[in-house]
């Protein structure tokens, strides 16, 4: 396979006009060869040049050797979605060079390692630049222990020279990448410089692509969704993090570990966050539920297989009403599936996670900003709703670098929900005659809880996953059961309003509406412009939580035709909408593609044109 697709006919060749800041290039290397640094440096430098950019890493489930691709897209118009096609390939992997070259459009560019070039297919309609890696490395005299990893700097030099990236800026981002450490930065830069000079002196540029400084990234940041989510947790007051490693969620917990220091007690230097690597996902879930029961803010991060394993605990948290936060950084399923490919394929299962009549609250971030915001807000919501909150992100958001605005500092005080301390409990009893954990005195389905350690003889209650009355006492009575379930469903309605509401771009003159969620956002933005240019005007609503907000239905009703766009196989958001609004789904069409790749505008446009055309 290859990370990018062969161009379709309408895009099959590149014109000879200069192309500035509006093309994509893919770097093909074997996994574990250290190309990540090269790619990061390139992305960072383009970003520093003020060019809207994104980088998508398509890596294998393997530590070393299998093919990996990194696609960097610069877009003067600010589009940050994956592009289905790429104009330029850096072909540094013999194992994939055939497909990599074949997928280039006519007029495309191939920057190729000398040894790889020997086995590459020939094409007359593309420009080929050969990088003499061996010679350059010999010249560079890098200590042999580092040679392999530094090799990839040769293409950085080549790219910089060919497409006009200032070397000093490359040097700066290299230094940044090495956390300010001069020595490794210098060693790598020397190789870049050599390659740059080699290209300057020996290669004649014959392609139309070029970068030019802009100022569209000013004030922006480049960050992965998992780092953003981690920061959200840290600023959201998380106390207990329990997890079990699994791709692609691991870096979220790594992020929490690396920002734990922000939550040190200034006097003692001790931490206010505990991060425990559990023995498995069941234990991780149990730990965060235990912490939630104890009144602490807790979080786990996992992916599909972990979500499956946590189902029993998720049902307990739902039914015993324990605040806690689960992150699902979705990867491709079913089963172990494709551990390093992105997907939005867990939302139906997660929304209904747990046997019996469970229904979970889910947040659906679409960007680093939201990963941060939902990251802190999830802990407020968990305590306000006394329920587990599932933040469903995905590999694309979690592990790729996204351009974002610096995060807004949480604009509200921390909300701990309805927790009674000893005095408040006393008052409650005075007001209501008694206190019971699950009494719904406010009519919102949410009781008042006490936490262990509350020094009051009536404060204790018994938490359980078995049937219980409003005093938290075991009960098998039918009416008690029904009352309790009805209250929990009432809470669901409270949540429906409290959770992040959809974001709409609506104009009553348009009759076509798009509905989506999460990381499809950039592709949809691009697709809408593209569709407009094809004469198809669209409105757009992005769902940000489950259960579905009421405005989703309103949006559906206001349109003649709705397309629900998702990155999964079954069209699961559409399925959830069908469950909730079957009566109004006649004009709703599901557009679902679960191919493991971040969504690209092209597919959306083509799919919609097929119906609208």
């Amino acid at each position, binding site marked *: 396979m290859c990370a990018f697709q062969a161009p379709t006919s309408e895009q099959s060749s590149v014109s000879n006009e200069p192309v500035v800041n509006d093309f994509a290039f893919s770097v093909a290397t074997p996994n574990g060869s250290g190309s990540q640094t090269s790619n990061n440096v390139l992305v960072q430098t383009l970003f520093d040049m003020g060019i809207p950019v994104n980088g998508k890493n398509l890596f294998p489930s393997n530590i070393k050797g299998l093919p990996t691709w990194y696609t960097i897209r610069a877009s003067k118009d600010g589009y940050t979605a994956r592009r289905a096609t790429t104009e330029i390939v850096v072909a540094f992997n013999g194992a994939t060079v055939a497909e990599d070259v074949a997928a280039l459009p006519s007029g495309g560019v191939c920057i190729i390692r000398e040894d790889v070039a020997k086995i590459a297919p020939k094409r007359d309609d593309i420009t080929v630049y050969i990088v003499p890696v061996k010679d350059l490395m010999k010249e560079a005299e890098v200590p042999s222990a580092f040679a392999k990893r530094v090799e990839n700097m040769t293409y950085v030099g080549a790219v910089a020279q060919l497409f006009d990236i200032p070397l000093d800026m490359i040097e700066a981002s290299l230094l940044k990448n090495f956390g300010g450490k001069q020595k490794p930065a210098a060693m790598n830069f020397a190789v870049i410089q050599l390659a740059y000079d080699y290209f300057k002196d020996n290669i004649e540029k014959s392609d139309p692509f070029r970068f030019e400084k802009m100022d569209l990234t000013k*004030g*922006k*940041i*480049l960050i992965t969704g998992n*780092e953003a989510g981690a920061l959200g947790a*840290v*600023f*959201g*007051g998380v*106390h*207990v993090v*329990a997890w079990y490693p699994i791709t692609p969620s691991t870096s979220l917990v790594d992020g929490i570990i690396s*920002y734990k220091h*922000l939550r040190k*007690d200034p006097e*003692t230097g*001790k*931490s*206010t*966050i*505990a991060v*425990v690597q*559990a*023995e498995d996902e*069941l*234990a991780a*879930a*149990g*730990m965060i*539920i*235990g*912490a*939630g*029961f*104890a*009144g*602490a*803010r*807790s979080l786990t991060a996992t992916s599909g297989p972990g979500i499956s394993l946590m189902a029993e*605990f998720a049902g*307990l948290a739902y039914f015993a009403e324990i605040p806690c936060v689960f992150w699902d950084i979705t990867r491709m399923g079913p089963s172990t599936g494709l551990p390093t490919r992105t997907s939005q394929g867990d939302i139906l299962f997660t929304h209904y996670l747990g046997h019996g009549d469970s229904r979970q609250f889910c947040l659906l971030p679409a960007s680093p900003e939201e990963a941060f915001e939902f990251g802190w807000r999830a802990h407020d919501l968990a305590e306000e709703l006394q329920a587990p909150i599932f933040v469903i992100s995905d590999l694309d958001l979690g592990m790729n670098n996204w351009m974002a605005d*610096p995060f807004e*500092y*949480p604009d509200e005080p*921390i909300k*701990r929900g309805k927790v009674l301390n000893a005095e408040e409990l006393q008052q409650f009893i005075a007001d209501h005659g008694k206190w019971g954990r699950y009494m719904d005195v406010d009519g919102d389905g949410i009781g008042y809880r*006490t936490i*262990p*350690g509350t*020094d*009051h003889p009536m*404060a*204790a*209650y*018994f*938490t*359980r*996953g078995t049937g219980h009355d409003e005093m938290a*006492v*075991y009960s098998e009575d039918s009416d008690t059961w029904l009352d309790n379930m009805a209250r929990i469903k009432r809470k669901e309605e409270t949540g429906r309003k409290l959770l992040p509401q959809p974001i709409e771009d609506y104009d009553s003159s348009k009759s076509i509406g798009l509905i989506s969620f999460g990381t499809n956002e950039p592709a949809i933005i691009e697709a809408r412009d593209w569709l407009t240019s094809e004469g198809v005007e669209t409105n757009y609503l992005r769902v940000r939580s489950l259960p579905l907000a009421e405005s989703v239905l309103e949006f559906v009703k206001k349109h003649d035709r709705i397309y629900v766009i998702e990155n999964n196989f079954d069209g699961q958001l559409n399925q959830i909408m069908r469950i909730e609004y079957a009566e109004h789904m006649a004009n709703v069409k599901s557009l679902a593609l679960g191919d493991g790749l971040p969504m690209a505008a092209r597919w959306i446009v083509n799919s919609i044109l097929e119906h609208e055309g």
Partner: protein
Amino acid sequence: MARENALGLSRNDYKGRKSTLCPGCGHDSISNQIISTAYDLGLEQHKLIKLSGIGCSSKTPAYFLGRSHGFNALHGRMPSVATGALLGNRELKAVAVSGDGDTGSIGMGQFKHVIRRNVPFVYIIENNGVYGLTKGQFSATADEGQELKYYGRNDLPPIDLALEAIIAGATFVARSFSGDAKQVQSLLQAAIAHKGTAILDIISPCVTFNNNDASTKSYSYGKEHEIPLHEIQVLAPDYVEGKEEITVGDYEEGEIIEVDMHDGTVVRLKKLDRDHDPRNRLQAISVLEQAQREELFLTGLVYYEEPRPTVQENENIVSEALATLPSSALRPSADQLAEVMASFQ
């Protein structure tokens, strides 16, 4: 007037709801010992939590310490819930109850790992050799070759949960018999003082499904075969005089082992027939290995070790309860966020 403890509470104040177990169930005796011990020690119930998995045994936390928060969790998963709760609030003490099925079958992984992390709590296994609540299937501690009415012959060797605990790195491991109230109470008292996971494997007969004389988990077997490794006396931290008195006067060299617990409590073990020093790991393993081979019902403090750091110590968290830190400790400042943001620019 009812008797009162140091907190001015009666023993009744340490009870929970009425038990719904079968009359005569060993588990009820253990609940009673927990109640007595907490009452005698004058424990503040709001500083305790009670936890359990699922099973008849795991129902019992509802029947003791009615003023403590409790959590009847999932089958086999109590240890992880305990871990989380005690990280969330390290000021709490936890008394947890599990069954032999709950711990030895579905819960084996969590049992091992909670011990390895040295989560400081009292972990009681109410061991009856059967699944009580699901009506009498063999558990993993059932005797090899035992026959049960519905489930035929048990072909598999029993798992020794005390031995498993030691191998997993437990620093306090005891075995007892729910019919031996005094020993259970002493062990509970010591376990509560222990700064680490304290495993109490208590044989606790299921009178409904496994009380046949032939079963090593029956009352009659326990009564007849229990061999205490030592007589146990637990001296509270402030109990100073008595300590000197007895040490000096009544016993000869080698007849008494004194184990100093972390909080000043002293566990005094008086030698009976056997020489057993619970501070020797290999000896503890050997004695259990021998007991297993020769079907000996040895009870007492089998193993004790100066505790390793607890999970909270390893996590290096603040000494207060995380759960009740003020909001100010929960959210870094806007400046700190700005600084982080700058690093991504």
